Structure formats: structure tokens, C-alpha cells
């Protein structure tokens, strides 16, 4: 069975600083993806970044990057130059079920950004 664990219920960062959110996972899929989603107060889920497990290179999207450690089953998100708009819940997820594309999510980390 697939599991996704986010061990930090809440995190705080000063504006313009860097913060890292942790995620570990377990999966029986041989070919899988990993995702970070952001859920701001509006509650719409927004895709932040994705990582294909077969790629060794860590994904990067502007100020967002991941540290993917496949052997350790770790997938952390680094936010650089944090902005007030980054304040949100962040969910880590991985897919299962092959082409069905089902996702299993962690319980989330609430990120606060201090001005």
C-alpha cells in the first residue's frame, strides 16, 4: 500500500528566507510520480512541482525546488526567497493505480510567512 508522510504539521519562515518542507513516501509502483500541491485560503489545490521517479535530476520551478532521494524515499520541497503569497497548506502526493492516475496525499504542512 502507498503511504505519504509529512512530519511537520506547521512551519514558519521569514519573508525572503528559505524553508524546506519534508515528505517521505512508500510505494509499490515501479514507475511513479511525486508532487507538491499548494492549497491557499481559497482552498483550490494548485500544482507546485512534480518529479518523475525515473529522473535523477531534481525538479525546479522558479523559486521552488525538490530534493528527491529515491533510495531513502524522501521528497522535500525547498522554497527560496519566501513571499507572503507562499503562505498556504502544502501537500505532498504520489500516484498509484497505473494509468488510473490516483493520488494519495500526505496530511499537509501549514506554512506561515512572517513579514
Amino acid at each position, binding site marked *: 500500500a502507498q503511504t505519504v508522510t509529512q512530519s511537520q504539521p506547521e512551519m514558519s519562515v521569514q519573508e525572503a528566507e528559505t524553508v524546506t518542507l519534508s515528505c517521505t513516501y512508500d510505494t509499490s509502483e515501479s514507475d511513479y*510520480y511525486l*508532487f507538491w*500541491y499548494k492549497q491557499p485560503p*481559497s*482552498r*483550490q*489545490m*494548485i*500544482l507546485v512541482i*512534480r518529479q518523475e521517479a525515473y529522473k535523477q535530476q531534481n525538479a525546479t520551478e522558479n523559486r521552488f525546488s525538490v530534493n528527491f532521494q529515491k533510495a531513502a524515499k524522501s521528497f522535500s520541497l525547498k522554497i527560496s526567497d519566501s513571499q507572503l503569497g507562499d503562505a498556504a497548506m502544502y*501537500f505532498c502526493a504520489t*500516484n498509484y*493505480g*497505473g*494509468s*488510473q*492516475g*490516483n*493520488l*494519495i*496525499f*500526505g*496530511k*499537509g504542512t501549514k506554512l506561515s510567512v512572517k513579514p
Partner: protein
Amino acid sequence: SQTIHQWPATLVQPVGSPLSLECTVEGTSNPNLYWYRQAAGRGLQLLFYSVGIGQISSEVPQNLSASRPQDRQFILSSKKLLLSDSGFYLCAWSVGHGEQYFGPGTRLTVT
């Protein structure tokens, strides 16, 4: 570009009343469609998914049902709502086994 719509945005219904939430996707064909529920302060729970018209799979047996009458339309229903059905309902779509894209959600309060 693809867009996903959900309505209504908010809904307050009494216990025992029926429910119908609708989700439509534009700009893509034959998407996989998903219904999730999110209780307050918690993660997302997958309720149903569909890989094609009339094909519905349930992840969690409960008081709800889903239907897909058209390629890009996904409906979540209940004949009689329970208090425990309250929550935030999100619809999502994907193509293949990659990322999912979510709609704006429906906040349901059962009183």
C-alpha cells in the same frame, strides 16, 4: 487551455436531503476524473474516479455515488445526506498517470 468548473461553490443542506454536485472540464478529451473530500484541517480523501463514460470506481464505500454521463462531466450524488457528509469537495482531472488539476471546490454543510 484546459479549465475545470465546479458548482455550486457553497451549499447548505438539511440532513436527509438529496445532493448533486457537478464538475465539468473543458479543453481536453477523455480525461480521468476524480472526486475528493477534505474534512476541515485534514488531507484529501479520494472518493471516486472514472477513466471513461459510465465507468466509476469507488475508493471508499459510503453514502455517496458518482456518475459520468458525458466525457467531461462528473456528478457526485447522494439520496440522503448525513451530518458526516459535510466537508469540502474537490473535483480533479488528469490525462494518464501524471499530475491532477483541481477545480475550485464546493463547500458542503449538512445541518
